[in-house]
């Protein structure tokens, strides 16, 4: 069964999730990729807090295509999450409650999920036309010069994803890998 999650939500609402659960996400997601993570870290270092009201929000590691077919985005899907490992623990400590990407994470990210009560969710890569059907609005927030890597606020409805690392530090990718050998 799929669990519905309304975003933004307090970490307490994520505590019951277990690695392997399928979730359907509704509400706000902020797109952020490689270049955005560097800028967010710079802001955090300079100001001592996350910019643009990101504390308490969820990040989607995604660089969408432009609007198409009458939708706010033609297609959108997760990019490789491990490229954000360098910034994720600091961003979770500063208030990010969930991030959505694809692929395995570093042990530091597992520990950050545990210590902050945050979660890492995996969306399926390569189904971006399908995922875009779950996006009802897209609004530029900042960093327009980054093009597809700009910070956008998406409104989503029942976007499908899986719990890859839960707040107890259980790791779905690791479990799959260990079962495989």
């Amino acid at each position, binding site marked *: 069964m799929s669990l519905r999650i309304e975003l933004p939500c307090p970490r307490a609402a994520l505590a019951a999730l277990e690695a*392997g659960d*399928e979730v359907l996400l509704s509400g706000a997601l902020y797109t952020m990729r490689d270049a955005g993570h560097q800028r967010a870290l710079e802001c955090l270092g300079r100001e001592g807090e996350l910019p643009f009201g990101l504390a308490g929000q969820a990040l989607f590691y*995604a*660089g*969408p*295509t*432009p*609007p*198409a*077919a009458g*939708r706010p*985005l*033609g*297609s*959108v*899907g997760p*990019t*490789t999450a*491990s490229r954000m490992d360098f910034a994720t623990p600091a961003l979770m400590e500063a208030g990010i409650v969930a991030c959505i990407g*694809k*692929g*395995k994470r570093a042990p530091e990210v597992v520990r950050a999920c545990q210590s902050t009560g945050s979660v890492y969710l*995996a969306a*399926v*890569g*390569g*189904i*971006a*036309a*399908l995922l*875009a*059907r779950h996006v009802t609005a897209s609004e530029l927030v900042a960093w327009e010069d*980054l*093009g*597809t890597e700009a910070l956008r606020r998406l409104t989503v409805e029942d976007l*499908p994803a*899986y719990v890859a690392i839960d707040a107890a530090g259980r790791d*779905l*990718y690791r*479990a*799959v*890998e260990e*079962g*495989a*050998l």
Partner: protein
Amino acid sequence: MHEPTAPARGATLSPESIGQAVYDAIRHCAVTLRPDYREALEEARTAADDDSPHGARAARVLGQIAENARIGAADQVPICQDTGTVWACLEAGPDMMVPGDAFRLVDDAVARAYRDGALRMSVVRDALLDRANTNTNAPAFCEVRLVPEPGARLHVLLKGGGSDNASRVVMLAPGAGPEGVIDVVLDCVREKAANACPPLVVGVGVGSTFDKVAGLAKHALLRPVGGQPQSAKAAFFEDALLERINALGIGPAALGGTPTALAVHVETAPCHIAALPVAVNLGCCAMRSATIELSGGAL
């Protein structure tokens, strides 16, 4: 796509016809899951065992990939948000003339196709010195191959960053033998498949030189899934390797189960007595490429 036409001997390929072929191929590929991949995906769905560990999740992901392909075609939207870099290979036979400016209009065609198709601009000006986006998705990465077969054709591949990043070149010692080659491929898949969007098509190059072996692996991805291997020996090696990859249990989207790969394609070549170069280029579940027959002067 263009119909093949028999070229006259000495027919000259024009930059215009190559540019047009690039434009058409990009617009088509961005919204189209390669038909041979789609067919193999359907076979995998039929064969799927929902009751195996992770089986229900694997079946659900395979269904989503098929549904995504349907939406891409119906709505003419990109099947993946990473609409890739443009990789193009012009193959020309002995009856064709290739002018030195054959690729003159390619970057312009790329810019128009990415703008007109509302595709994603994913190219920076310089990997090291200037990572500003070119905002056109140009330049394309092009090569020419002179081949014995008559006529000329253009292969166009839209390659996503995730699956290309998950690829590698390893220079083995010849003593490592076939088991060493297998280990390189299995290590690559085990470590990187989760980033490369499985079910994969695994392109493997073995032989030639350090720079050329990666090209062998990339060309291996152009062969249709289910297409003819290089030889019976190569076919045996491919089947054995596919079985071992799928025994890893990584599964669709790396969320467990099977299949992890739909095919392994191996291209081999001669090499130095001291060498055993191996390259692995992973193809993702949004496999996008097309081959367009060209004719000199007719386009």
